[in-house]
């Protein structure tokens, strides 16, 4: 077995330690060692965006990063977004309200991408939304509900600030 490196990172506010070969992807580390199975792997080649997580606040594709590259980083997965067990994050709430998901497989990646997008652009036009989320693929919804959800979440997050 190739040499194993020990790994440590903050995942959803908790320190997660683990081990892995240098080739272990961040997606696999998060799914198998940090047990965040909300990180979904849809292509493993950086196009679909299902595996999106926030690394030090930035949306990244965890299938394209090795776990060692995230050693010491602060990671947020979809499991870490809701403030408490009774309340959803405004983006999560909006996806539910607007039917932004059907099978739900692309959803964690979309929710994190939208959260990061709205952080950078709190008041986007529809056109900006469509281009802003064009880095994620959804095969179920035809994006109608996702665009509407992004619109709703933007308004809710602006109102909440």
């Amino acid at each position, binding site marked *: *077995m190739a040499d194993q490196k020990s790994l440590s990172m903050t995942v959803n506010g908790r320190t997660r330690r683990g081990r892995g*070969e240098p*080739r*272990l992807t961040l997606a696999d580390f998060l*799914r*198998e060692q940090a047990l*965040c*199975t*909300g*990180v*979904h*792997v*849809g*292509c*493993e*080649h950086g*196009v*679909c965006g*299902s595996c999106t997580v926030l690394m030090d606040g930035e949306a990244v594709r965890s299938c394209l990063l090795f776990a060692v590259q995230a050693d010491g980083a602060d990671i947020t*997965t*979809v*499991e870490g*977004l*809701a403030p408490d067990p009774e309340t*959803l994050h405004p983006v*999560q709430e909006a*996806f*539910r*309200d607007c*039917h932004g*998901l*059907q*099978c*739900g*497989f*692309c*959803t*964690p990646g979309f*929710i994190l991408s939208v959260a990061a997008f709205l952080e950078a652009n709190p008041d986007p036009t*529809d056109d900006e*939304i*469509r*281009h802003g*989320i*064009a*880095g*994620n*693929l*959804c*095969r*179920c*919804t*035809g*994006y*109608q*509900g*996702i*665009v509407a959800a992004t619109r709703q979440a933007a308004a809710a997050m602006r109102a909440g600030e």
Partner: protein
Amino acid sequence: MAGTAAAGRYVGQSVKRLEDPRLVTGHGRYVDDIALPGMLHAAFGRSDLARAAITQLDTTAAEALEGVRAVFTGADLNPHNDSLRASLYPPTSPAPPANMLADGDVRFVGDPYVMVVAESRYIAEDALDLVEAEFEPLDPVVDYETAADSEHHVHPELGGNLAHDVAVPNPTQQEAFENAAHIITETWHQHRQTNVPMETRGIVASWQPHAGVMEVWASSQSPHEMQLVGARVLGIGEHKMVVHFGDVGGGFGQKMFLGREDMAVLVAAKLLASPLKWIEDRRENLMASNHARIEQMAVSMAVDGDGCFLAADLDQLEDDGAYPLGGPATPGAMAAMLFPGPYRMGPVSWRARTVYTNTCGRGAYRGPWQMESVAREQMIDRVAREVGMDPLELRRRNVLRPGDLPYEAPTGLSFETTISPEQTLEQAAEMIGYDEFRAEQAEAREQGRYLGLGMALYIEPTSMGMGPLGTESAMLRVEVDGSVNVFMGTGSHGQSLETTMAQLVADELGVRPEDVTLHQGHGSGYGFGTGGSRSAVIAGGAARAAASGVRDKVVAIAAHLMEASADDLEVADGVISVRGTPAASMTMAQVAATAYQNSDALPAGMDAGLEHTARYKAPPSTHSNACHMCVCELDPGTGKVSLLRYVVSEDCGVLINPMVVDGQIAGGVAQGIGGVLYEHCVYDESGNPLASTFLDYLVPTAAEVPELETGHVVVPSDTPGGHKGTGEGGAIGAPPAVFNAVADALAPFGAYPNRQPLDPDTVLGLIASASD
């Protein structure tokens, strides 16, 4: 109960989905989230050649790698399974050999010929690199148009490449042709596409050797197909096949049937007596799961001087690939029979053939026979152009009107009085502002802008009530606390059945949707699963019948306990009350507690408990219909097509949940747009797939799919609740609508497209060759 067509307290409302709280927080349970103690991982070695003899296969080095548990070849695994047959495929029909793994020769790029089982997927893939295999290339059969005549045979066992050939000539069609004012002929081509669920295929199988039980978690649309066919593959009883159903990340037809890999995993898990997981990667999914829509239909249509359709002659040819998923299919026959669609068409002659090629097998993809709408609707636009008539006017002249119904189509299908093609045609025309658009288009052309409008009108047979597809069951139990568990044979993978079935049960039984939990998979009664736009009618029929059976008992118990007349009671939101006297009431929980825990208090002779099982048998077919209209702009400099507007008017009967219906339509429309403009599983002449990543296989993004406007015509069907199916429709109407829009925009150049995809290169080529 039957024929209760009105919306209810919850039916007809856009109830928020019960699935969503877990899915938006990352707490779904997809197959790859299953981890069992001691679980091993499988990876498949796949052919890089379209057709070749395996001259050497040495797995010694792979087996020796640390962490590898076993390496299987075809010779090891195939003897353990004698059939790839799915339950829809007749056992006596000729089919490819039952090779889960290629044995002796490979038959398409991606054909699995070796399977490694190891402690991790990483190690399994390392070991694949150590398998020593040598191949002697053979001439592949890649082109399906010439496959039937090829001297090379994809499956030598079958003695030829023709899988099916069905012809139904109609002598009066010839006669009609002789007297027609116009006969217009074209061959319409679709191209190779694939389903692309965002979750690839996958399975976890765990064998309990002494008990003889196989426990399975699968990404499936049909847990009972897995139970039935899996048990047959393993040679065990269905009662020993425990199929768990979790969250499934889309399927669109791909996950209805077991793939060869699924079967290989089941067999290997049993041989190894160890839990085994296989998760398909995207490259495998794009090149070796299933492809679809590789077909053409040659159409001749006879039309009289007023534009009335007189007769048609059809010749359909489809590519089955090497190992069609679910068995060699004959969708061409369905496509031909459905060709008349929502029009008075006159006699139709048809022929339908499928052929094998050394390519990825064909499988069902949302609206598997939608070639009927593609060929017909594109043909109608062509006819309009040839006879100089407006395409909307031509459709108006021929569309089935309420007075024509019920209608026996010349190909043998019958349409009930509850279809509404004319109404959806008119609603769509109104929504898009048809006349205004034509004026705007003319103006734009003067300014050098090329706009096009395309439309498509179709009838979809949903909820087929025949054979294995004909029924679904629901086992419904009110628990002691008054909450409800319902067990069904469905396989919801995005269709929102946990919500829509709960809405039906809530109205029928008199509880709230959130009081109802739907359970699928193990423990449910046989059902074909979710696909074919069948769940609203067939599963819905079962859910209603089960709920209604329990409701009768709830009312009888409450009447007895409250000393009221059953006729005076109403049940809503879990409360049984005397109509007009709301103070006189009791709760579902009180009734349930009596039924289970104080059965001596029940009316004399009544059985204890509060549960009911019902199986609903659907009528042979329930039809929904819709009209799609869209507007595109074409840039003649770059060949780029942009969609500016997209309108759908549809009739799926009584909507259970309008938000869910609109979502189903939108998803199908996006797939249709992708199919016509972007997606293409390209093969080169040697049979190499060139689109094996998402960089080459272009799934549309939010930037390519326009805002969708939907309108609903509601003519209730005669089935319980008045619903009709809606899952596939978007993907049926969109391809011809988008195609016709582009053809309309190209008309000023004198171009006549007859094949997809209409990517920028193709569009520029059409413009260039038309001006030559």
